[in-house]
């Protein structure tokens, strides 16, 4: 047996780290997954190679997030290593050592937003975003598609890429009206410079194999085919599994493997999934084999019963109708308001950090621009941080967005209104406070 694709596997279970002694994001979360991969001889298959993660630098994080007041205050080494796992996966692909890569790392990242005051939804750093911006820093602008298949809406990733037309963010998740974080509705489609580049596919509880695969076939693949990304990243959360303790879907290891084969991502990064014995070992085995281009039909949970897990016909029907709504929003996005270049468009946000119990108030403004993704200005304060100003000059920024960003940064420092003033200047590779 030889892998069809050279697959790089970064397995980092962080056996000595947990969010807290009783938290589900805990030491043994990937233990049985490691056992399963070893027992199945995955690491002995020619073409599948195991690698150590990199350690993300503070600079890697500062390029991606506004950490308040600074990177060390809101991260620990375990977060840097998790992000480093994703970065190593990217490095393997970009340096040509592997055709595909899977970062099986913890802790997860997709609930971490652009501004970080602390831990939110078990996440401190958005590990996929750190990886993607690392790629862009070292290899130039890329068209990238993120497909987030975690059961929870990837609100952090959505927030980071809300204004970026070069990053297509597709999230399929259990409908926010029934599950944390409560967002991810059909009409969340992106900011004025990137409208239609965020696509949300909210699914009813008890969706099963048939439903998920239908979503891939009828919605995700047609959209990807149109967007033509340079890279497809799968935020591969595994909490859609029928044994997951905190969600309500009916997905299976076979289903995940088949989904992965059809989606054909270049890089997969583990996100959530807390059924550490009943799901993770089998789902991960399935994903690994699918990415390596190998037969995964024998991967099954001990109690796998496809008939018992069949989804209700009403759900099948619902998803058929959902496809029309989703495709319409991607192919013919109709924003409520049209803005003229040069306008500053603002959103007010209230963000709750459930894990750390922090409340944040934010006013985020983007400069509408016909030539680039637009300068970004964020005023933020929270229960743990006073008024802070964040300015981002994005990759590929036009001259006026560049100069506007620098001016706003300087004025912010002089104004005396802000305890902290942070700048991300991508064209100059300058990330400072």
């Amino acid at each position, binding site marked *: 047996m030889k892998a069809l694709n050279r697959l790089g596997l970064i*397995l*980092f*279970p*962080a*056996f*000595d*780290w947990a969010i807290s002694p009783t938290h589900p994001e*805990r*030491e*043994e979360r990937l*233990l049985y997954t*490691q056992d399963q991969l070893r027992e199945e001889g995955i690491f002995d298959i020619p073409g599948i190679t*195991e*690698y*150590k*993660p990199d*350690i993300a630098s503070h600079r890697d994080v500062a390029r991606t997030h506004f950490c308040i007041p600074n990177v060390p205050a809101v991260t620990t*080494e*375990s977060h840097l*290593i998790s992000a480093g796992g994703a970065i190593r996966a990217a490095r393997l692909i970009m340096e040509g050592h592997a055709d595909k890569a899977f970062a099986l790392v913890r802790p997860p990242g997709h609930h971490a937003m652009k501004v970080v005051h602390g831990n939110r939804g078990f996440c401190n750093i958005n590990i996929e975003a750190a990886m993607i911006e690392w790629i862009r820093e070292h290899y130039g602008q890329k068209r990238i598609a993120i497909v987030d298949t975690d059961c929870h809406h990837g609100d952090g990733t959505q927030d980071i890429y809300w204004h970026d037309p070069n990053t297509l963010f597709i999230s399929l998740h259990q409908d926010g009206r029934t599950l944390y974080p409560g967002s991810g509705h059909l009409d969340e489609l992106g900011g004025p410079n990137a409208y239609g580049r965020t696509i949300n596919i909210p699914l009813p509880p008890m969706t099963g194999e048939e439903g998920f695969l239908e979503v891939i076939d009828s919605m995700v693949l047609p959209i990807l085919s149109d967007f033509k990304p340079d890279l497809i990243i799968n935020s591969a959360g595994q909490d859609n599994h029928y044994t997951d303790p905190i969600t309500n879907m009916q997905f299976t290891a076979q289903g995940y493997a088949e989904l992965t084969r059809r989606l054909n991502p270049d890089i997969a990064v583990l996100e959530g999934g807390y059924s550490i014995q009943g799901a993770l070992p089998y789902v991960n085995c399935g994903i690994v084999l699918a990415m390596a281009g190998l037969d995964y039909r024998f991967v099954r949970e001990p109690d796998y019963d496809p008939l018992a897990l069949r989804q209700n016909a009403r759900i099948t029907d619902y998803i058929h109708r959902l496809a029309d709504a989703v495709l319409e929003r991607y192919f013919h996005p109709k924003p409520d308001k049209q803005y003229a270049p040069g306008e500053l468009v603002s959103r007010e946000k209230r963000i709750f950090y459930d894990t750390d119990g922090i409340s944040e108030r934010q006013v985020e403004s983007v400069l509408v621009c016909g030539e680039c993704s637009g300068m970004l200005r964020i005023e933020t304060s929270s229960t743990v941080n006073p008024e802070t100003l964040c300015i981002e000059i994005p990759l590929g920024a036009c001259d006026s967005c560049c100069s506007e960003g620098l001016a706003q940064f300087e004025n912010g420092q002089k104004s005396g209104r802000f305890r902290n003033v942070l700048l991300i200047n991508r064209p100059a590779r300058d990330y400072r406070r």
Partner: protein
Amino acid sequence: MLVAEADQEPLPFARKALAAAISAIKSAVDALVADVNDRPVYTVYEMLHPERIEPKTLYVVGGPAPALAGLLADAFGCAVIVPPHAAVANAIGAALARTTSELELLADTARGVKLIPRLGLSEEIDRRYSLDDAKHDARSALLATFGGSYDAEVQFLEASSFTMIEGGRVSGKDLRVHCQIRPGLVQDYVQGLRNS
């Protein structure tokens, strides 16, 4: 015959062959060291405190050792030692090597069972069975496989304890111990060296 096929002069051809051999040896050693230094680790602690090896001295053994030593010194840029009896060093080593062995012990305190797969052993344990108990049992079992008294150092390659949670409550501990006889020289020989 090779020289005739290659249509070259014998001496330059031999030199080329030698250079190729030295180069192959260097590549293999570099790859081995890189593999060891880059081997996957699974804890934050090990990531932050990597144990790296950096060879400083090269010992060359085997029949051709004296002839290759100089060239290897040039290629590796470090001290090269050809020990006495280099031609039979491996044979001497094999004769003097301590017998080693290893053994794994797995215990699940929720199910109340301990296993030593290598010995086909499965025994009951109680809920308070600890990692120290597991290490003690593994060590005894390993030494017992030699029969009689075998005074050798046992080292632990792994000794982990993982909490198992079922239905929101701690149900028990998943213990894994992997130990081996520390590789080294036969005890009598070491004693003899000390006495001499």
